[in-house]
């Protein structure tokens, strides 16, 4: 069983993606053995009202049963997110994914804290990608920042009851972020072989706070899969990372 916690559907306006629809993503998942993808709308990165992307995503995945777990994208700076949150949860979304770098807010802004507090009250997990692309080759219209680890640290400290899954992070082991038990780490940018960052992270925070993710379809899947396959850990640890932790975080049992 493999759950990919870091997956997307829709268009990425700065580059043509080889897979944009649920049908195309399922095809890719089947080729490498991914059972479930935890997806959010890429269209919602740039829609003024991200809620439109959420419902496009629901429409796209409706025929694929349990292959997809939808996460709602909300912008706490845009009016009506409280209603949108209720609508999303009522329609089967299992958590949130925030894009602060594209929606122009800081994780520590009051509105964002309010949104995450509310999500936490509803026992929802909030996932946040540090970035959606490597900044070295960014498109000239794409000025989004990488979310700073310190920003996430402040959020984790202010809202200890929240559950935050940090996507696309690396070099975290030596940061204070590892001390916060409410922060989980997706591993696709960490090395398994050279440097052994994934193993160090497990030693630092325990296997229960690491989840598998690939970044598909922005990124290839196999690099992340290889990292887990080549990890010098027992099968129980690998199972936790590959699906058990994700399942617990999203209440999929």
């Amino acid at each position, binding site marked *: 069983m493999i759950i990919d916690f870091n997956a997307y559907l829709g268009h990425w306006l700065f*580059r*043509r*993606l*080889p*897979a944009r629809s649920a049908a195309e993503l399922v095809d890719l998942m089947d080729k*490498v053995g991914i059972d479930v993808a935890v997806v959010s709308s890429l269209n919602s990165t740039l829609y003024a009202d991200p809620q439109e992307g959420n419902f496009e995503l629901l429409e796209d995945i409706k025929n694929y049963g349990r292959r997809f777990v939808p996460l709602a994208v909300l912008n706490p700076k845009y009016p009506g997110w409280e209603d949108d949150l209720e609508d999303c949860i009522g329609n089967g979304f299992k958590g949130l994914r925030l894009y602060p770098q594209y929606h122009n807010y800081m994780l520590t802004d009051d509105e964002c804290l309010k949104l995450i507090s509310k999500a936490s009250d509803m026992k929802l997990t909030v996932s946040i990608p540090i970035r959606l*692309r*490597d*900044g*070295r*080759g*960014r*498109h*000239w219209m794409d000025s989004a920042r990488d979310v700073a680890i310190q920003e996430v640290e402040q959020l984790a400290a202010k809202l200890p009851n929240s559950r935050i899954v940090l996507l696309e992070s690396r070099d975290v082991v030596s940061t204070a972020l590892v001390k916060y038990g409410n922060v989980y780490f997706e591993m696709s*940018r960490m*090395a*398994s*072989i*050279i*440097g052994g960052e994934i193993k160090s992270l497990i030693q630092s925070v325990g296997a229960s706070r690491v989840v598998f993710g690939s*970044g*598909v*379809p*922005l*990124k*290839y*899947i*196999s*690099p*992340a*899969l*290889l*990292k887990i396959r*080549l990890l010098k850990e027992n099968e129980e640890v690998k199972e936790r990372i590959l699906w058990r932790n994700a399942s617990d975080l999203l209440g999929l049992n």
Partner: protein
Amino acid sequence: MVRIDCHSHIKNKLWDAGGITPESLMEAADKLEIDAFCCSTLTFGMPTPEEFKMCNDIVLKAMEEYPGKILGYCFVNPGYQTESLKEIEKRIVEDGMIGVKLYNQYRCSDPVVYPIVRKTIELKVPILQHAGYLTDQAEAAEQPNLSSAQDIARLSFLFPEAMIIEAHLGGGGDWEWALKNLRRARNVYVDTSGSVVDMGMIEKATKYLGAERLLFGTDLSMEEGVGKIIDARIGDEEKQLIFGENMSRILGRRSR
């Protein structure tokens, strides 16, 4: 399927290179079924002849420890022309190194580099040219003499007999921009290394350049380097070319 990593490194006393030693490369080789690593080690700024010779001594030692597994690039600074040409001659002819590594001391379209290129043509060895097109201004400012695909294309048109490898398609910024620039530069190969694993990169590179101009590499992003080729939706024969056959052919051209 032969796997030759055409872009790898080991550390030296002036550059940590993530702590990479020949031994750690061998461990990665076992796990990722990599048959050989083409390695250099280098220093930043404007390395003196003493410094680039020190780098090449380290690589030579690794080659001797792991014959056939670690192949060496000779690193030079083209600003020291006489010393660089002498060093290349020695390392390739006497020590058995397989090519020349150029970093960001000069853009490769700078005439100061031309004598180096002529030497590699004479010896029939490739140049692995550090390269990129960094659209982020802060990143670009850190490497003012970074060679872009445009520089590499210009150099290739001037020296059609040269074998030039544009380094790290997945580590040099806008890779689509690079591919567009290199399409007609037919004596330029592209190494696929780097930490960027944008889906579609290998397919587009194959479409624009042809699989016979792509070379598998890691630049120490090990799982990324192998995983992006595994996932690419191209034929097995094309993967075979990229993983090792193309580099084998390049190595086979070397003057004996």
